[in-house]
């Protein structure tokens, strides 16, 4: 059953990735025009520009360039950085590990908070508590990360002096020190995501509370705690899983801002500095990596959803 689901879902992910890779490739190779000129500057010798373009393989037909680029990419050879003149892959790997730490920190905080907030609002649906949680969550969700970061830095870094203002921890820091340094940078992401998660958790809980199976469970005399745990939450939190996975894709955009602001060497600040320096191989590799992670995450979410949802499991429909 799961295999059949995978067989249907996997080709879609692959097509998405193919389109994405073509778009990223065209964005990096076609739009910039003369890359050698852009990298070396307007005053550079035309011969130096031509030499640079030849050395980087930019003077060949596009389809050949794409073919060699994507086939090398698939075996882990992501090209050579224009800026550093060394392979791109190690930069991506280091940045991913760092971003993963920051993202994990944010998710560990926001997932329980968001679910708690959403379920709490749902249990008091229509009251001021409900409205306050919903409005607060959604208002916070529309404020750009650099604004909330600035305010948080001012409060916790400058005025209260509780937390370091940069995520750049000392070299030989242990796990606890790293967590301490990551706490403030993770908060802007928490603020952005709280509203989304709370909204979905609230909607799911409201629906489940209203469902016939909940009424049956209450009427057959189960205690409220058991009804909540076994019947309401189990059904309510399914859609939340899908939303969390879709946030992983959005997360990368937030990371660009937050990592740049907090001087943190992750995939977001890597994309930012590569875009600044017009280092297209680095940019393409980083962007495609982000896209691939999103594709895997959404595939995993769909799979998890299918595994957990008895209706999908039995019906076989996707």
């Amino acid at each position, binding site marked *: 059953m799961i295999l059949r689901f995978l067989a249907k879902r996997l080709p*879609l992910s692959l*097509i*998405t*990735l193919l*389109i*994405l890779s073509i*778009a*990223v490739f065209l*964005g*990096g190779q076609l*739009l*910039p025009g003369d890359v050698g000129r852009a990298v070396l500057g307007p005053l550079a010798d035309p011969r130096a520009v031509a030499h640079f373009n030849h050395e980087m393989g930019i003077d060949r037909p596009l389809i050949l360039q794409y073919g060699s680029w994507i086939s090398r990419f698939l075996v882990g050879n992501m090209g050579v950085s224009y800026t550093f003149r060394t392979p791109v892959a190690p930069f991506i790997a280091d940045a991913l590990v760092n971003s993963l730490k920051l993202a994990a920190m944010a998710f560990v905080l926001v997932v329980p908070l968001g679910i708690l907030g959403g379920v709490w609002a749902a249990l008091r649906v229509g009251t001021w508590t409900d409205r306050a949680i919903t409005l607060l969550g*959604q*208002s916070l969700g*529309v*404020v*750009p*990360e*650099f*604004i909330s970061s*600035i*305010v948080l*830095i*001012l409060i916790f*870094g*400058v005025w209260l002096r509780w937390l370091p*203002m940069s995520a750049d921890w000392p070299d030989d820091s242990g796990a606890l020190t790293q967590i301490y340094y990551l706490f403030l940078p993770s908060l802007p992401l928490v603020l952005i995501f709280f509203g989304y998660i709370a909204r979905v958790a609230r909607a799911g809980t409201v629906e489940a509370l209203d469902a016939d199976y909940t009424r049956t469970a209450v009427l057959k005399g189960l205690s409220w705690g058991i009804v909540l745990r076994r019947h309401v939450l189990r059904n309510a939190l399914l859609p939340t899983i899908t939303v969390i996975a879709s946030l992983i*894709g*959005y*997360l*990368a*955009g*937030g990371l*660009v*801002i937050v990592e*740049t*602001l907090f001087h943190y060497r992750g995939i977001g600040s890597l*994309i*930012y500095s*590569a*875009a*600044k320096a*017009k280092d*297209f191989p680095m*940019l393409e590799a980083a*962007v495609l990596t*982000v*896209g691939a992670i*999103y*594709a895997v995450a*959404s595939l995993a979410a769909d799979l998890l959803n299918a595994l957990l949802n008895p209706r999908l499991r039995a019906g076989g429909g996707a």
Partner: protein
Amino acid sequence: MTTVLAPPRRLRSERTRRAARSATLLVGLAILGFWVLCAVFGSRIAPIDPYADNLLATLEPPSWVHWFGTDQLGRDVFSRVIVGARDILTVAPLATLLGTLLGTALGLFVGYHRGAVDDLVSRIIEALQALPLVIVALMALAAVGTSNLAVVMVIGFVFTPLIARTVRSAVLIESSLDYVAAARLRGDGALDVMFVEILPNVLPLIVVEATVRFGYAIFFVASLSFLGFGIQPPSADWGIAIAENYSLIGSYWWTVIFDAIATASLVVGVYLAADGIQSVLRE
């Protein structure tokens, strides 16, 4: 005759009344209206020339002369915050307009004709969703170079398939209704059916979609300007001001906090207005 005309008129006045009662809509419109006034008349409202350097009065804390203090070049922060509304309130609406026009046309087309184009657009939308807008924009702007026009184009083009998807699903529903079949039987051309018959019926939905997108556009223009890929200096734009001054935040908080509050108020205002419009238009 009157009986035929009565329902729409009653509907409209009912909508107006509902709009007047909606607190979120009014608060949102008030905030947005305030910033639009600043954007249009900013240079006349500002008490001090927002672009004038004064190297004898740099980084002064808020005072009676400089309500929000001065920045590194001695420019009056209060005046700059007021004038700073102009560029973001030019770029973001234009980007939204571009995306809405193209997205509506595309959505009508693929929703009405379906077929291969429909499939292709759906796939492209899915691929686009794999990347956050900030990253798509960074990549495109790094490639074509940064200018206000480039920002409008990039955000407009990214919005196009997203808006097209919403329009498409509404057009699919409308296409199956009798009035569309009647128009076709009457011998109306495809363009007539799409733009004269279907478009007026999906217009409320397009308005809602556009206001929601406008909120996103503000968000992204502000973020891109902060990153140096959006509006460019010497504009008094809030994002630029924050980027220029946030390294000073430890000692000179007034150089960033007012711009931050201004940005936050604008995005929340637009969000409330969009939310209000949505609940008014959806019966």
